[in-house]
């Protein structure tokens, strides 16, 4: 396989191709006839996925740094470059994106009935935006793509959404824009620090990593970056846009939102917060605040989910709960914790995406999302039920599914440094069963009381084609997580080393301006 890829020069062009091919597809979709739009969009995005699969082999598992990296000047006056690359952290996010997008498009075939060309064009634009976020190695470029994802999502929710779609779309947009604009100011601050320390203004990720910051600066910049990413995650208490957006979004919108867009936040944690602000990240208060918010989110969202009558809203809240595990895993600052966080991100992307797809299928059949309107579907739609049950169990984190690997590792990693937090957070796993299983029971089991439910058809072939890869992936990761962990481990260790070295750099910085009480403290910390 590798020989074949090398022969094609795969590594030289693949990242650029992945980034821009969806835009080409967008042009084709807009250009082509309305009735061909969906087929074309699906074929195109599936093609992009097939292309991206080569990354699995082209990527060297044992290497920590960025691979397939390339950089070209873009706006020289500002020191902005067009720099792309993948490491063990972004690799999986890229694959998750290319994997989920065609499935989300396929899941929209019968759901989207108006302005189809526009819808599929926006889906492809969204794919470019998200891939740009994960591939960028330049903070300016990253910011551009980070913001770019807002526009297609805004229109997807606002035009094809449910009744309160405009409210949800505007809330989503303003919430996220607020965070990211403050992050822009922080990026600029970093740029100016870089300019005075490195001698030339640059936005390149690797160069800005060299910038040393005082603890006070780190804490302020951390706050700005963390706000932007926390809104995206979303972390309690800035999560309130999420349920609205999820409920109102069309199926594909929810899928992409849950599976990919939220990951941009946690990806930002790992990619930017930890390496750039090691001092702030290890600051005791900040760690406790972030973990505390993560744990609060896990428990609070789980409780709120448990009382939702609307199945889609319930799943939306479970997202908040699951993403809390990622946050505590990341801020545990252990290899296990970070790996667990990454695995939860992947698993949550697959399982929650699948849940939204299934709920979308149910909505198309019954035009309701209320749990009480269903019941006994297992008798009439066994395949649908099977898919739903497996997905729900993955979401809960049953051993043997991908959900278990992630949450177990995240909790393990947290336990190593913050046993109490891990203890409280593990309650979230129990709560997950408490909100998920009754929903499954009330929708698919119990009696087939309502006569509307008797005629519910089982999965069509198209729907089966969506669910099979998702379910297969959940089980595969659950049984065989090693290939995933092996690829992400070096990069994660590098991030943690960077955090550690940042601590010693901090010591050097403190020694340079000796303050009597500080001079003794770091030695104990190390």
């Amino acid at each position: 396989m590798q020989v074949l890829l090398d022969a094609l020069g795969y590594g030289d062009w693949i990242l650029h191709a992945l980034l821009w091919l969806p835009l080409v597809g967008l042009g084709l979709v807009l250009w082509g006839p309305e009735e061909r739009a969906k087929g074309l969009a699906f074929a195109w995005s599936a093609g992009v996925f097939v292309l991206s699969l080569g990354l699995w082999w082209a990527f060297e598992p044992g290497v920590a740094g960025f691979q397939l990296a390339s950089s070209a000047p873009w706006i020289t006056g500002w020191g902005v470059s067009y720099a792309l690359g993948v490491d063990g952290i972004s690799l999986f996010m890229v694959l998750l994106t290319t994997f989920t997008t065609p499935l989300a498009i396929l899941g929209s075939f019968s759901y989207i009935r108006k302005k189809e060309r526009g819808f599929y064009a926006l889906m492809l634009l969204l794919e470019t935006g998200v891939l740009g976020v994960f591939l960028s190695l330049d903070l300016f470029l990253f910011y551009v793509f980070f913001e770019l994802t807002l526009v297609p999502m805004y229109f997807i929710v606002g035009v094809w959404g449910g009744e309160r779609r405009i409210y949800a779309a505007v809330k989503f947009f303003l919430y996220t824009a607020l965070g990211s604009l403050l992050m822009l100011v922080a990026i600029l601050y970093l740029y100016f620090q870089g300019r005075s320390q490195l001698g030339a203004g640059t936005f390149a990720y690797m160069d800005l990593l060299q910038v040393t910051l005082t603890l006070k600066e780190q804490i302020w910049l951390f706050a700005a970056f963390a706000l932007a990413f926390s809104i995206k995650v979303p972390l309690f208490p800035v999560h309130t846009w999420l349920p609205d957006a999820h409920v109102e979004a069309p199926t594909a919108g929810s899928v992409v939102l849950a599976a990919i867009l939220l990951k941009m936040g946690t990806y930002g944690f790992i990619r930017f917060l930890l390496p750039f602000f090691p001092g702030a990240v290890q600051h005791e208060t900040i760690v406790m605040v972030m973990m505390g918010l993560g744990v609060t989110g896990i428990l609070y969202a789980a409780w709120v989910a448990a009382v939702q009558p609307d199945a889609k809203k319930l799943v939306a809240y479970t997202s908040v709960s699951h993403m809390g595990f990622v946050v505590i895993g990341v801020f545990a600052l252990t290899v296990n914790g970070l790996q667990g966080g990454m695995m939860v991100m992947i698993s949550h992307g697959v399982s929650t995406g699948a849940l939204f797809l299934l709920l979308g299928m149910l909505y198309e059949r019954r035009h309701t999302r209320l749990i009480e309107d269903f019941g006994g579907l297992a008798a009439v739609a066994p395949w649908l039920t099977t898919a739903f049950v497996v997905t729900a169990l993955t979401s809960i984190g049953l051993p043997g599914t991908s959900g278990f690997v992630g949450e177990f590792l995240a909790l393990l990693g947290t336990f190593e440094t913050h046993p109490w937090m891990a203890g409280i957070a593990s309650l979230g796993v129990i709560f997950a069963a408490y909100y998920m299983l009754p929903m499954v029971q009330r929708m698919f089991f119990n009696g087939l009381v309502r006569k509307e439910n008797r005629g519910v058809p089982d999965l069509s072939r198209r729907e089966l084609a969506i669910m099979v890869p998702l379910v297969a992936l959940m089980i595969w990761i659950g049984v065989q997580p090693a290939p995933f962990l092996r690829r992400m481990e070096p990069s994660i260790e590098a991030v943690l080393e960077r955090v550690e070295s940042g601590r010693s750099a901090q010591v050097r910085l403190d020694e340079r301006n000796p303050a009597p009480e500080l001079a003794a403290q770091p030695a104990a910390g190390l």
Partner: protein
Amino acid sequence: MVIDFSSNLDYVRALLPEIILCVWGMVVLMAGVWRGESSEEGPRAEGLGWLALVGVAFAAVANGWLHGVREVGTDGMIAVDGFRLFSNWIFLTAALLGMLVSFAYVYRQRLQAGEYYALMLFSVAGMMFMAGARNLIVVFLGLEVMSIAVYALSAFNRRDRRSAEAGLKYFILGAFSTGFFLYGIALTYGATGSTHLPTIALAVSNGTAHGALLLFGVALMGVGFAFKVSAVPFHMWAPDVYEGAPSPVTAFMSAGVKAAAFAAFFRVFLVSFQGAYESWYGVMWWLSATTMVGANLIALVQTNVKRMLAYSSIAHGGYLLVAITAANQASAGAALFYLLVYTVMNISAFAVVIAVSNHGEERLEFEDYAGLGRNQPGLALLLTLFLLSLAGFPGTGGFMAKFQLLLGAMDAQLWVLSVILVLSTVVSYAYYLRLAWYTWMRDPADGGSPLPVYLPIGMRLALVVGAAVVIWLGLFPGSVLDLARASAAGLGVAGPMVEILH
């Protein structure tokens, strides 16, 4: 070619674009009355428009020629530097786009085409005088030439009462503010003994200027400029005038007049008053903060598109005031670049508004945009693009311009002002997006399809040029940005002014 203003011919050379515009304005005026009544006919009115554009093209050639001219010393009343020439490009762009969007409007509303386009050319000449002035008297002259032409243009639709109201309001308040400005010039002259900007700069920086007189002079000129750039709280006239004036005039003046006022504002404050930075820094800080916050908040509750764009234009003035507050090299370049991008995107957004309002003053409410996305997807797409650019969204020229502005502000360590800038940008997203969601997400209230939209060739051209520039500068701003920064370098801004404070 070298210009040292030793002979009067040098002045002719230095003022070539202005002279061409003035002469051409008279040509258009004469052509307009050549056959009396028939000037109101459609094709003829459009012909006059094209004729005026030929004048703009000649002026552009002259301006391009001036790039190859080198001036010696700073004794002339007219500057031949990059700052002026880049500003001239902005005004010429405003004239080009402003005229293109006027074509159908002028003959549909039966405006006298000859006078209309001639006034536009005269006002552009006035703008150029303002940007190129190296003497306060020339600034004033340019201000009056520009303003009087624009007062007349605002009131140009004599069949429309609101147009007359707009013109009168603008004229009275404008005249009042000109009084402030003139008094400021007089006091500055009293304090420094000169109206020549470099001489004033010298007197201010070496402390020979009379302190109190100078302070009042600076303050009064500041009020005059603040009025012209419609900074909050001197903005009260703007929404009414912008709403009442014929839409193409609003498009033209919200960009061109603002650009000219800022160009002069920059030269006077950053060059001649840079020695008094401490005394006006605080006022500018608050002026920009209140303008950004106030205008964006008021824009949120507007239901009329022209009024919303009027407040948006005020808000953009606030962002530019940040550049004056920062008063450094980066900000001067940023302001030029911003003004160029703003001119293009603002007139283009107005172009869509004019098209939707059927080249008249109808269908100007947000409600009227419901269903536009379904009926006119192309036009709605362009509107969305221009709105996103006005909002400063990545991928558009508006973002790059705002980014450079932010870069300048942060270089001057204006942290709080930078945060206010980005927060007010978030507020602005709300109202720009509101128009976008009316366009795409609402169906018309009466269920019927709106009137078909008429897009004559001039309008199409303006929209295509506008969209191309906005996207091009959004993706590859490098070359234009470098030109803007190089142009501002000749202005002679001292550098990071903020060090005076710390």
